[in-house]
C-alpha cells in the first residue's frame, strides 16, 4: 500500500516537472530506486512532489494549469456529481418503483397525492437529460484539465442543451417550478469561466506572436 502510494506520488511529481525540467524529472526518477531500497520511498516521493508543486506555481503556465485543475475539481465536478447522482436515483426509482420523495407524496394530503403520478412521469422524462447533464459537466472538467478548447465548447453546448431540456420539461409539467435554477447556475458559471481561461491562455501563450502559425 505504502509502496503503491510512493510510486503514485513519484509518478505525479515527474509528470508535473517533466514538461519544463525533463532533466530534473529524470534525476529524481533515477534516485527513487535508491530511496526505495533504503525503505524511504514515500518520504522521498513526498518531498519530490512538494518541490514539483512549488515549481509549478512559480511560472505562468504552471499557475494556469493549477487554476484550471482547481476550477474543474472544486466548481465543475460537484455539479457533475450532483446531476449524476440525481440521474442514478431517478433510474432506480423507475426500475424499482421505490423513492423516498414519492412515498412522502403518496402519504401526504390530497394535493400531494395528486402530484405523485406527475412526479413519476416527470422522473421518466428527466432521467436521461439529467444523466447527460452530469456527463457533460464531467467531460467539461476533464477537457478543461487536459486543455482541449474545442471539446470544452462541445461539452458546454451539451450541458446547455440538457439544462434547457430539463427546464422546459419542468416548466411544462409543474405550475410553480422550483429547482431549475441549479442547472442554469452551473452552466452560467461555466459560461463565465471559460472565456476567462481562454483569455488567460491567449495572454500567456508559450510561443511569441511572430512564431504563431497562420491559418490558411
Amino acid at each position: 500500500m505504502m509502496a503503491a502510494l510512493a510510486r503514485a506520488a513519484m509518478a505525479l511529481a515527474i509528470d508535473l516537472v517533466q514538461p519544463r525540467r525533463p532533466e530534473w524529472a529524470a534525476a529524481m526518477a533515477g534516485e527513487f530506486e535508491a530511496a526505495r531500497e533504503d525503505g524511504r520511498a514515500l518520504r522521498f516521493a513526498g518531498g519530490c512532489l512538494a518541490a514539483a508543486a512549488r515549481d509549478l506555481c512559480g511560472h505562468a503556465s504552471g499557475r494556469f494549469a493549477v487554476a484550471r485543475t482547481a476550477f474543474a475539481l472544486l466548481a465543475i465536478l460537484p455539479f457533475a456529481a450532483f446531476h449524476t447522482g440525481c440521474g442514478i436515483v431517478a433510474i432506480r426509482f423507475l426500475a424499482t418503483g421505490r423513492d423516498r420523495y414519492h412515498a412522502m407524496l403518496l402519504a401526504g394530503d390530497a394535493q400531494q397525492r395528486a402530484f405523485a403520478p406527475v412526479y413519476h412521469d416527470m422522473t421518466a422524462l428527466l432521467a436521461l437529460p439529467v444523466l447527460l447533464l452530469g456527463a457533460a459537466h464531467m467531460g467539461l472538467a476533464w477537457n478543461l484539465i487536459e486543455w482541449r478548447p474545442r471539446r470544452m465548447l462541445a461539452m458546454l453546448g451539451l450541458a446547455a442543451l440538457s439544462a434547457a431540456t430539463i427546464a422546459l420539461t419542468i416548466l411544462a409539467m409543474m405550475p410553480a417550478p422550483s429547482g431549475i435554477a441549479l442547472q442554469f447556475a452551473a452552466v452560467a458559471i461555466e459560461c463565465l469561466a471559460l472565456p476567462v481561461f481562454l483569455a488567460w491562455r491567449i495572454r500567456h501563450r508559450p510561443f511569441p506572436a511572430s512564431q504563431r502559425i497562420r491559418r490558411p
Partner: protein
Amino acid sequence: MQRVRKPSAQMAKLLHALFARPGEWRHGYDLLKETGLSSGTLYPLLMRMTDQGQVEAEWQPPARPGRPARHAYRLTASGMALARAVEDRDAAQRPGLAAT
C-alpha cells in the same frame, strides 16, 4: 577580497558535503542522506546551483542492469571557490577559533 553573499543554511550544508570530497561525483540520494535535507529541498537547490554554474552534473550508467541511470553532481571551480569562502567564513565565526 571577494565578498561572499551568505548562502542559505541548506545551501551551506550542501556546499559542505560536496566540498568534503572535492572532485568526486556524488549521487543525489547520498547527498540527501549526508546533509539531512529533504528531497523537496535538495533537488531544487541542486538544479539552481547547476543553473548558476556552481555545480556540474553528469549521467552515470546504472550499477545493475534494469535500473535507471543516475544523475551525479560535483562542484565546479566557482562552486569550489564559494564553498571555500563559506568554510573560511564559518571557521572565522566559530567562537573557539575567533578567540585564538
